[in-house]
């Protein structure tokens, strides 16, 4: 990679790495520390192809790599959680008032990884349906339906007052 490429990559990191890290935290539900490891791995791939992609919307490429990695990680995590919590404790969950924000985040984390990614990209990243579809490599119709179902599920559960 040329010095110019290296400098451009540093500029890209300075401008976008925090946003990518935040997206990863939201999509995979990991701690910032774990998400940073995931983002580093994704950015390593971006760096490897930087000479080729830097002139061709590197942000979209990087976001796509990060989101896909975050979805994969969230799925693996979910399998582990499902195994670990196959027999949930019978004791009632303490009725703690976590507030609307925590309730929303808890419900967001319960969504399937891909549906959560749609919600994050659409409503946190403010991406259009077309941009979200491109980032996730799916059809616009899928984005529409996943977003609608995700929001409906969150509304429903909050209305039911499911303990969180």
């Amino acid at each position, binding site marked *: 990679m040329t010095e110019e490429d290296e400098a451009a990559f540093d500029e890209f*990191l300075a401008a976008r790495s*925090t946003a990518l890290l935040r997206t990863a935290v*939201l999509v995979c539900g990991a701690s910032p520390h774990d998400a940073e490891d995931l983002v580093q791995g994704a950015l*390593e791939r971006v760096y*490897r192809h930087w000479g080729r992609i830097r002139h061709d919307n590197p942000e979209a490429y990087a976001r796509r790599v990060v989101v896909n990695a975050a979805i994969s990680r969230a799925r693996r995590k979910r399998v582990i959680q499902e195994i670990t919590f196959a027999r949930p404790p019978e004791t009632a969950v303490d009725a703690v008032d976590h507030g609307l*924000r925590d309730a929303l985040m808890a419900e967001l984390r319960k969504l399937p990884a891909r549906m959560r990614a749609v919600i994050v990209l659409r409503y*946190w990243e403010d991406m259009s349906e077309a941009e979200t579809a491109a980032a996730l490599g799916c059809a616009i119709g899928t984005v529409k339906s996943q977003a609608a179902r995700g929001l409906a599920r969150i509304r429903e559960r909050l209305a039911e007052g499911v303990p969180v």
Partner: protein
Amino acid sequence: MNTEQALKEAMAQHVAHVHASPMMGRSVRRRSRRATIRLRTAGVALVTATAAVAVPVTMSLTSGPAVSVAATPAPEATDIVPATPTPEPVTTPFVVDGVSVGYLPQGCDTPGACGVWVGVYKDGATTLDQDGRLDGKKVAENTYLNDGNMIARVLDDTHGVLVVLEPSLAEKLDAATIEAELIKVAEGLTLAD
């Protein structure tokens, strides 16, 4: 406030304290150097995997039938194996010389993210049989698992397929997983339209 707006604010608050480390660039470059070393190591391993496919390539060049090969990871590894066919990143579903690959292990839908090799023998049954690939444990009709990390399947008289897991990928998995994944890949092979 509607749900979308409330979610947006909740997400923004949730990650407001999250900032990328100023050392991110250094960490990424360090990982890249490590990955380069891994890729070179994998390149050596790929020679083994490639050899399994390249031998019939050579044979087919002299004996008639052609073999097409598609594989991941992406071409970095080939710089030390200039004589091998240039691998192309895999995306699913993809087609290798008339054969559609309908299943790849999880994570393989991302180009360069996995090490699965798919080679198509244009003169299927004859060449696969001649090359000794139709051997080992029969796991389905015309499908044989052999050498631990490869599976061969004859689709018709002119399409035989050899699927090889790159050794560096195979060594991360247990034997049962390798067998299950190879069988799934073999089951997902169909003649393309």
